[in-house]
């Protein structure tokens, strides 16, 4: 189960993936190879339909690996069992495009419920840790609000707290800023970056949003199922301005 390169969080090689059968078969990923090191913040960009999200779901153990080798957090995903995939997913913090919070719970409950996955954590400890991380994302005053009473940006901040509260070994984020306006999106990404740096958690984030590219250590670009380019990001800047890049959804033309 242990990978050869035990240092890397994710290593993959020769990954091919298709949807459908027979004539309707459509290949999405072609011979993808990637490696993500501990503590690295990696952005995965590319136009719609380029296969970014499919790659993300494979790494998350949400889809069955068809061809190639993929090791995530020490789990080999080739022919992995459902139980094994569930164990892997519990080590990952997820952030979704929409916040995907449970609407019938308060902000605090949404975060604290994650400890139901860690039976060793007592109720008291669970509540304390959930409270602390909500304070860190700036929602200390609104912890007991039902999520329906929070703004979009606040909801996504709760989602970040939920993803990180269990001290995951890897954070996977899918377009976390897509549903937010520029300012809130910026805040959310900065928050994610600083928390991840603090906890030394690697992040793999799929995004179209050119405004947030500056948080990355590394940017991987995808096109038509191929990894086309990998470049160093401008990670040193903690509060890097958005560089005045316009909000364009299609950044295929942007090269690094």
């Amino acid at each position, binding site marked *: 189960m242990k990978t050869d390169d035990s240092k890397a969080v994710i290593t993959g090689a020769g990954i091919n993936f298709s949807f459908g059968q027979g004539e309707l078969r459509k290949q999405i990923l072609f011979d993808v190879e990637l490696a993500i090191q501990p503590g690295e913040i990696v952005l995965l960009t590319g136009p719609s339909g380029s296969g970014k*999200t499919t790659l*993300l*779901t494979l790494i*998350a153990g*949400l*889809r069955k690996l068809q061809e190639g080798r993929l090791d995530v957090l020490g789990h080999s995903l080739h022919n992995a069992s459902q139980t094994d995939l*569930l*164990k892997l*997913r*519990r080590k*990952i913090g*997820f952030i*979704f*495009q929409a916040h*995907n919070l*449970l*609407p*019938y*719970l308060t902000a605090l*409950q949404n975060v*604290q*419920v*994650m*400890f*139901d*996955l860690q*039976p060793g*954590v007592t*109720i008291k400890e*669970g*509540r304390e840790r959930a409270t602390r991380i909500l304070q860190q994302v700036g929602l200390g005053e609104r912890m007991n609000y039902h999520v329906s009473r929070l703004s979009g940006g606040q909801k996504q901040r709760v989602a970040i707290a939920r993803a990180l509260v269990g001290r995951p070994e890897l954070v996977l984020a*899918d377009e976390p800023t897509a549903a937010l306006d520029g300012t809130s999106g910026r805040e959310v990404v900065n928050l994610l970056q600083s928390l991840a740096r603090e906890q030394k958690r690697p992040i793999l984030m799929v995004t179209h949003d050119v405004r947030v590219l500056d948080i990355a250590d590394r940017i991987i670009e995808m096109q038509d199922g191929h990894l086309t380019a990998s470049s160093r990001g401008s990670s040193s800047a903690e509060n890097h301005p958005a560089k005045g890049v316009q909000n364009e959804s299609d950044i295929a033309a942007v090269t690094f």
Partner: protein
Amino acid sequence: MSQGIPLSWLQLKHEKMKLFAAVAGVMVSVVLMWMQLGLMKALFASAVVFHGSMNGELVIVHSQYEHLLHSKVFSSRLLYRLRGSPDVSDVFSIYLSPGEWKNPWNGEMRSIQCYGIETDNASLKLPGIERHLQQLRNTDVFLYDRMARPRFGDVVGAVERREPVELELNRRRMSLAGVVDLGASFGVDGNVLVSHANFLRLFSERKSGEIDVGVVKLVPGISVVSAQQQFQKVLGKEVQVLTVDQFKELELIYWRSATPIGIIFTAGTVVGFFIGFIVVYQILYTDVTNHLPQYATMKAMGFSDGYLYQLVLGQSVQLATMGFIPGSLIAAAMYAGLRKVTQLPLYMEPMRGVFLIFATILMCTFSGMLAVRKLRSADPADVF
């Protein structure tokens, strides 16, 4: 659910209208089941009130006797043979026949069950009957069943107002000597007790000494079963010697088999069960369907299928509890009302309550388990 957050309850109460509808569905189902089972039990209980009041351990009826409304007479001389036995402390004979009662207030004719009983000793264990036995020896008097249906007229009211009651029974002028409690049943609307002599006056076609029921009171300490076997041998095949329980059972067998009452009420109970089942299933199913994205998210984050099943099944058990309690209260009120109107012995019996708690939980769990299958279609890969 180790963090103590009651997810199933919080999810249930999040949508108040849906919660209300589900609880109402369970309530209706619970009321229906209480009513059906209660009425069935009451019918059967009311059919054997007379049988249960026998002042003895053994009952003798004709071998072709089927039930109270289908009796066959035998000679009381057979009973005298038992008088000599050292095991027997007393023997009673009872005549029975339906009679024609003319309502003294509106002149309507009604069929009423008439019993001719001995007046020297109480052959029936009915509260307060002893003080009436003396009066019953007078010519053309009768005891009336306080729990008879109101269609016979307001006899009880007249007694309370201390008015004399006179009326025609089988076209014979009779006067009321008192009231006792026997009770109406599905087959009999009311009862009248008279002495042997008055019975024979009312039913001139009946012959003295040709009785319907013999009651044997044994000396205390005698084995009922061995006495029964011994008497059956002595009396021969013309009659059957029964214990009181067998006498009741014979009556119940008739009501169970010859009438569809058992089937109807059992079917009613099953219908009640299915109403609850379908309502809860519908609500949980749409609930699971509406929340599929949430469940898919939870699955993606690492929550197991078992955790989510528990979440949905927890809701079904909560619905069961919330529907059972008010449903039972409504049933109790309806029991009380019906008891008053029909004189049927309808009571909230604890054993039936325990049975219904289990039935309700089973009903909700079943529907929960069926609805939970929908969870499999929550594909965590869809959340991205």
